[in-house]
């Protein structure tokens, strides 16, 4: 059940859209054309070479030469908008991340994350013809305030899955819960995590929804469904005080 209002102080810190597709070796030749179509909204561009490094405790029996120290180098074409929306294009994926959007598709807002997706992906698919996407994903990372690090106060703000009767919040410095569930054609990875940042507790909610084998003309409708799934789960997790906090009606000094 998506919210009917745009909160002035949402708990969402980052929202990410990603789609993956088969490796397209010709994509480098299309990047100039793609940049030309998006340059008004994404005027900054960079080329990035990235590789994963491996840190491994190999033990006394293993041979060092058997352990790869670095993964393959990936080439990333990155575009950035003035409001810090970042668009990354790789040979097998495209992702858009934002820390500035407060709403996905609320009609009263002029700054909607859905519009950024529709613009960038629409331009991309008009230049790079892909009939079927391997995966379409939408992820929200929320940093939620904990006004007082007690189980009772926490329960008033959140419908948490933490086992607080056994491990009271007062005594906890870390707590994590992760579940991956399937709902019809969609998957949702839900992570609830207690973090202590600068001595202050906060609840990190990480919703990572995705669908597989998506026809490219359906990408936006499927993303809408993922958003509805994530929003419903979010509002299942928070209680009224969190909404009041997001409206600016309650202050939490330790937050931010």
């Amino acid at each position, binding site marked *: 059940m998506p919210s009917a209002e745009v909160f002035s102080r949402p708990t969402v810190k*980052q929202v*990410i859209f990603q789609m993956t597709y088969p490796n397209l070796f010709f994509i480098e030749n299309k*990047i*100039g*054309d*793609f*940049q*030309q179509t998006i*340059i008004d909204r994404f005027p*900054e*561009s*960079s*080329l*990035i*070479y*990235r*590789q*994963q*490094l491996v*840190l491994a*405790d190999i033990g006394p029996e293993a041979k060092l030469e058997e352990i790869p*120290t*670095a993964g393959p180098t990936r080439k990333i*074409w*990155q575009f950035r908008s003035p409001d810090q929306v970042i668009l990354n294009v790789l040979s097998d994926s495209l992702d858009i*991340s934002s820390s500035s959007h407060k709403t996905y598709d609320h009609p009263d807002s002029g700054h909607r994350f859905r519009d950024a997706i529709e613009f960038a992906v629409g331009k991309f698919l008009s230049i790079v013809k892909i009939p079927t996407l391997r995966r379409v994903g939408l992820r929200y*990372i929320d940093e939620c305030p904990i006004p007082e690090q007690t189980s009772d106060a926490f329960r008033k703000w959140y419908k948490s899955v933490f086992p607080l009767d056994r491990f009271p919040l007062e005594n906890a410095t*870390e707590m994590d819960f992760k579940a991956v569930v399937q709902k019809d054609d969609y998957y949702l990875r839900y*992570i609830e*995590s207690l973090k202590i940042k600068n001595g202050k507790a906060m609840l990190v909610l*990480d919703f990572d929804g995705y669908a597989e084998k998506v026809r490219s003309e359906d990408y936006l409708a499927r993303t809408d469904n993922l958003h509805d799934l994530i929003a419903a789960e979010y509002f299942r997790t928070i209680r009224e005080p969190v909404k009041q906090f997001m409206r600016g009606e309650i202050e939490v000094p330790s937050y931010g």
Partner: protein
Amino acid sequence: MDNAKITDDFSAGGTGTHDPGPVFIEYPIGAFTATVQLSPKGEFVGIVEIKVNKDFRNFRQKIATKVHPDVADYFKDDESEA
């Protein structure tokens, strides 16, 4: 996004401490920015990313988006001389 890593590994050795994950530091080197990965103890692990600002368009595409000045504006008669 890569810096905000949530570690899934519960098999780290030792007791009393848990792997806080790698640390990434950005170093500008001329026109490039190198991202260096450090171990949780602050030891150098390697360079994970090299970034350089770049325009991917070819000359023809760049010209197509430029606004050309009207050169006639530079040759207007000065009214004071008339």
